């Protein structure tokens, strides 16, 4: 049945830092739904048997990761100003979740191909040149059908070592997706003598196939 209501599309960019990094994706969806209710925004609900707010996330964030580029699409039954949505949500969000900007219309989230991560390990590797020169980088990886050995090399676009952190540009999206903790495990496996220790993971930006930032 076609949805005949007049609905308004928005998308917003938010950051997830501090204690909020421990919230899993599913729990985060619930947190958002409740924030929308508290903010009193005219949320559009699905018309099924158990109505739920119409929300769409670009790319789930792993537990323990922080981010400054999370993208969320939502639909409202009214058309408040962008700044009003931002301010009302920020007033009722738990610590660590902050709306950075709100935009009208549809986002380009479907174009998502790459994500940039900042990885801060306890110990930096001396060099990643040899690691990047490997033709195949096989590591066990969680997939939809269980844990399997996979070659992650094609999904590593770039790794740059800067002062105390590794910047990783990796495949992202529903088609191919590589998470930086898997890369770190591969580095621990293949770089002789390397032990990263505990790492901090931060998502810094998402891009389309032409390396245009999606925001």
């Amino acid at each position, binding site marked *: 049945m076609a949805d005949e209501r007049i609905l308004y599309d928005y998308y917003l960019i938010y950051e997830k830092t501090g*204690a909020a990094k421990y*919230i899993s994706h*599913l729990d985060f969806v619930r947190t958002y*739904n409740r924030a929308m209710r508290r903010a009193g925004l005219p949320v559009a609900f699905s018309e099924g048997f*158990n109505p739920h707010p119409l929300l769409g996330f670009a790319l789930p964030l792993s537990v*323990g990761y922080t981010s400054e580029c999370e993208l969320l699409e939502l639909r409202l039954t009214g058309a408040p100003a962008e700044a009003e949505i931002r301010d009302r949500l920020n007033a009722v969000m*738990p*610590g660590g979740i902050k709306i950075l900007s709100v935009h009208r219309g549809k986002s380009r989230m479907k174009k998502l191909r790459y994500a940039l991560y900042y990885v801060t390990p306890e110990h930096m590797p001396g060099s990643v040149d040899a690691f990047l020169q490997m033709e195949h980088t096989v590591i066990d990886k969680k997939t939809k059908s269980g844990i399997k050995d996979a070659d992650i090399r094609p999904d590593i676009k770039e790794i740059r070592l800067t002062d105390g952190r590794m910047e990783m540009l990796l495949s992202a999206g529903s088609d191919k997706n590589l998470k930086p903790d898997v890369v770190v495990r591969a580095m621990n496996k293949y770089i002789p003598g390397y032990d990263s220790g505990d790492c901090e993971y931060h998502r810094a930006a998402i891009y389309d196939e032409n390396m245009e930032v999606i925001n």
Partner: protein
Amino acid sequence: MSTVNIDKILKRVQKPTRYSGGELNSVVKDPGGVSIRYAFVFPDTYEVGMSHLGMKILYHCLNQRPDTYCERVFAPWVDMEEELRRENIPLFSIETRTPVNEFDFVGVTLQYEMSYTNVLNILDLAGIPLLSRDRGEDAPFVNAGGPCAYNPEPLAEIFDFFTMGEGEEVIGELMDAYNEWKAEGGKRIDYLKKIAKIEGIYVPCLYDVEYNADGTLKSMVPNCPEAKPRVRKRIIENLDEIVYPDKFIVPFMDIVHDRASLEVFRGCIRGCRFCQAGMIYRPVREKSPGRLTSDAEKLLASTGYEEISLSSLSTSDYTRFEELADKLLALTEKEKVGLSLPSLRVDNFGLSLMERVQKVRKSGLTFAPEAGSQRMRDVINKNVSEEDLMRSVGLAFDGGWQTVKLYFMIGLPYETDEDVAGIARLAEKVVELYYASDKTNKRRAPSVNISVAGFVPKPFTPFQWAGQNDMETLSRKQKLLKAEIRNRHIKYSYHQSDISVLEGIFARGDRKLNRVLVRAFELGCKLDGWSECFDMDRWRRAFADCGIEPDFYTRERSYDELFPWDFVDIGVTKDFMMRENERAKAAVTTPHCRLQCSACGAADLCAGGRCSVYKEESSLNKIKELKENG
């Protein structure tokens, strides 16, 4: 003052939001700006503890005081405990990650016996001596309340003091007394003697206990003038005048009851003879629909919850139910939130109400006939007939439900095998009802889930004298019932019988059990309420190591025996409970409080000795009516 750093270990545990804090509406204060720091402990995991209403209420009460900062503490799950012990990190509060032993008070809520080893594990993880007598002058005051505190004796050597009854008022008196005591510069024992004078407070070290040769209690007498020979429970007489949280902490993780709950009333008019809650929370006291609706509005606005639940022992006994339902449904329909009504009785459950609730969201339906035969239901004073159950389930089936859950108990006093088999017969009749109705969808099959628990005799009930079935008897009855169920639409599940027996031992236990508890903890018992952690063999060893015979605690008792919990005055008298036990033997029912007062004694707790039931509008009308009709 210090804080612990757990960032590293949070990455390694399964569910970090059990420990990470920072949830919406959690209270943030400057610990340096208060004179009292209170660690409120729920001795089970976060998702269980965060579902508990009492904790929310007392957290709110304490944090309303500018001089006090109350923080939450939960039992860590196995993986977190391993990390804490390996990294040598003490157990900490959720809000500020302060080690628990740095608090002034450690207050534990005792909701069920199977959490007792968690209390010891929490104290151990916090570096607090397990026994009250081993704690130094700087240690926190470790105290407890909640339903299990009504028989405090199995934990008497562990806690410094207990609070009997409802906490909203007395917890403030305890904090005031603490400030006074601090100003006076007294010793630890001085504080305990000071609060022993407050109504509802029990300080175990101020009482001497003697036993008879057969192990039963001979005497329990105060050893100082401050301690009262009888400790009377506290109640709040007018619930409309008492504080209720306008905000609930909204957890990130999915907890057991993740919703806004409204406390509709306290107490129960029913008097089921197995039910401890029905006795210890007497007399019944209702909140007004107006107050409840305003509580609901505030909670929805501050939490964004998508569900409101009504909380009480028997929601449909609320005298102004229609009025409340009207007000709440107007609110829930506007806000697009669900309304859930647990604890409905099968005898006064209306179709119109169900249809209206269904309009918003359909939740599962559970009924509790408790026993399979009418004779047995009369013994336990459930006052529910088979017709009542069939009428309610029939309404549910006709209303579009296919699944109903039925709760039962086995091992009840005066029970025969026919009574047990009666559970299967009743469930079969429920299935037949589905097929007999012309309103049900026959292309879909009904599902009747029966859940059967082993009866545990509890203190302060008419069955406190009863013998408890041993594991063999319970297992035999479980098997007997299983063999009786031949209908494929009936799904049968039952509780572990060894857990029921252990629960019964501690429920009616005495001071001698403190040793067993400590020994069980030393042997590794913890999280006993979780089947993956429970280990009966360790418990057997703990009893054997202490030379204590478990059967002593499950035996039938005589009317002249002095019970370890007799010094607690819950209002309801021992004499009333004896009368009720005699009626049970004869399978004679007792009418509920609104039909006829049975002089249970709870009226004594109210001003002027007039029970709250007499102050209810409907009761006043009835009295007026009776007078007018001569």
